[in-house]
């Protein structure tokens, strides 16, 4: 904590306009869409166009964050992008983003990877560098265009999108009060080098992985802060589907209402490293000064990052300066059938 306020100065998100419904995927594999919708509490997901990837999503999200922060890009001292679908295995996504936005060249750039929590990792490091006095502003992004293997359960939820946060000490709109991280070797979901699709361990991804890490990180945050669930207006958890975050919230003592505003997964799908960050962005779009926000991410492999935010008066100055998450979610959607979806997701074997 300390005397000086450190936190989010600008935030922004980007979601592609393409969508595919559970019905279209279920039809492809001969499954019952109603069973899937009930089980996952998910109706449709975002799909990136052939011309979109983690880098283009990050650039557009960061543009929105800059519109809200209204700072000179050259004052950004670090750019961290967390993703599990970086377009290059070697060449950080941030190197392209900085030239697109006129950041640097005196800037530190790195890519983060930790399944679905790479975005919050970037946020933690960016925040820490600003707090340590290393730089005026640091940009953290969580963005993904993750793949679900054809016919696999994850195909219904793996989607695309991302959010960007500029951390700083001046004109903070959401102060970071506490953080916590909880990590272990829990092999619930992984992807080997050169493999196109990830692998997962079925039901093992639940209690021993997702719930153990989120709940422990969550409990530690509550202990550190000496706060109770009732003190919070909003709670955001990693959203691999609609059901898990609601269950995690319940285990920690939060209500469905506290989760509601950030609970965008039924229409967005699981944007992996963009998941809880975009849930947070959706909350910040409408939050009021004094609101407390509880957020815990989860990345398979496994670990969780937790944050407690306090929304400041400055939030009202910035909310309308860029497009809001729900506006992107609910406008301009173009629905695809499975064939178009497979083409956009490079799931079709082409002739070399």
């Amino acid at each position, binding site marked *: 904590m300390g005397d000086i306020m450190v936190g989010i100065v600008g935030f922004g998100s980007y979601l592609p306009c393409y969508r595919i419904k559970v019905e279209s995927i279920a039809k492809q594999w001969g499954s019952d869409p109603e069973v899937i919708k009930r089980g996952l509490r998910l109706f449709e997901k975002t799909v990136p*166009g*052939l*011309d*979109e990837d983690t880098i283009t999503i990050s650039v557009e999200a960061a543009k929105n964050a800059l519109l809200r922060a209204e700072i000179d890009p050259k004052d950004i001292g670090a750019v961290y992008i967390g993703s599990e679908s970086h377009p290059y295995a070697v060449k950080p996504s941030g190197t392209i983003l900085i*030239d697109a936005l006129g950041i640097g060249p005196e800037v530190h750039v790195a890519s983060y990877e930790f399944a679905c929590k790479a975005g919050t990792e970037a946020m933690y490091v960016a925040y820490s560098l600003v707090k340590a006095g290393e730089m005026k502003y640091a940009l953290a992004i969580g963005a993904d265009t993750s793949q679900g293997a054809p016919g696999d359960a994850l195909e219904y939820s793996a989607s695309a999108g991302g959010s960007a946060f500029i951390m700083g000490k001046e004109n903070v709109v959401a102060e970071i009060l506490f953080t916590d991280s909880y990590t272990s070797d829990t092999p619930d979901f992984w992807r080997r080098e050169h493999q196109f699709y990830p692998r997962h361990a079925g039901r093992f991804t639940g209690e021993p992985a997702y719930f153990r890490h989120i709940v422990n990180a969550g409990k530690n945050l509550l202990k550190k802060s000496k706060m109770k669930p009732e003190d919070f207006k909003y709670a955001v958890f990693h959203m691999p589907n609609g059901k898990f975050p609601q269950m995690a919230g319940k285990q920690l003592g939060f209500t469905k209402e506290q989760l509601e505003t950030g609970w965008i997964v039924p229409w967005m799908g699981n944007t992996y490293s963009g998941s809880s960050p975009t849930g947070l962005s959706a909350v910040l779009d409408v939050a009021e000064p004094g609101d407390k926000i509880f957020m815990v991410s989860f990345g398979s492999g496994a670990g969780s990052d937790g944050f407690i935010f306090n929304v400041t008066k400055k939030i009202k100055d910035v909310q309308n300066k860029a497009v809001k998450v729900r506006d992107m979610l609910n406008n301009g959607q173009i629905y695809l059938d499975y064939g178009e979806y497979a083409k956009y997701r490079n799931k079709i074997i*082409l002739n070399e």
Partner: protein
Amino acid sequence: MISPKYFREIPQRYRLEAGKCKKCGQVYFPPRLICPECKSKQFETIKLNPEGKLLTYTIIRIASDKFSIQAPYAVGIVELNDGVKLTTQIANVDFDRIKIGMKLKLVFRKIQDEGAAGLHCYGYKAIVI
């Protein structure tokens, strides 16, 4: 994509940097060494406004090998608000909706891939606003 060739065009493709003739004010995109209008060689760098309108367009159905996976796609000539005209794809739009005169905005997208192992090549595309 030859690396140096791609790298040289980054300021234009990523940031829409153009050259404005200091003498007569004409703006060139990409920037030039000599102004065709007044023959001056003095220019200043400016960033173009990404909004504009559609002057003409087509739908590419048969593309070169590199772009064939993207076909069919719309391509048009856009006149930006500061007078500069450029050629760009029009993304995320129903072909039937495209009309000459419609308002567009340039956004950051991936333009092409150099095969499975080469560079990802980025730049601008237009979307309807």
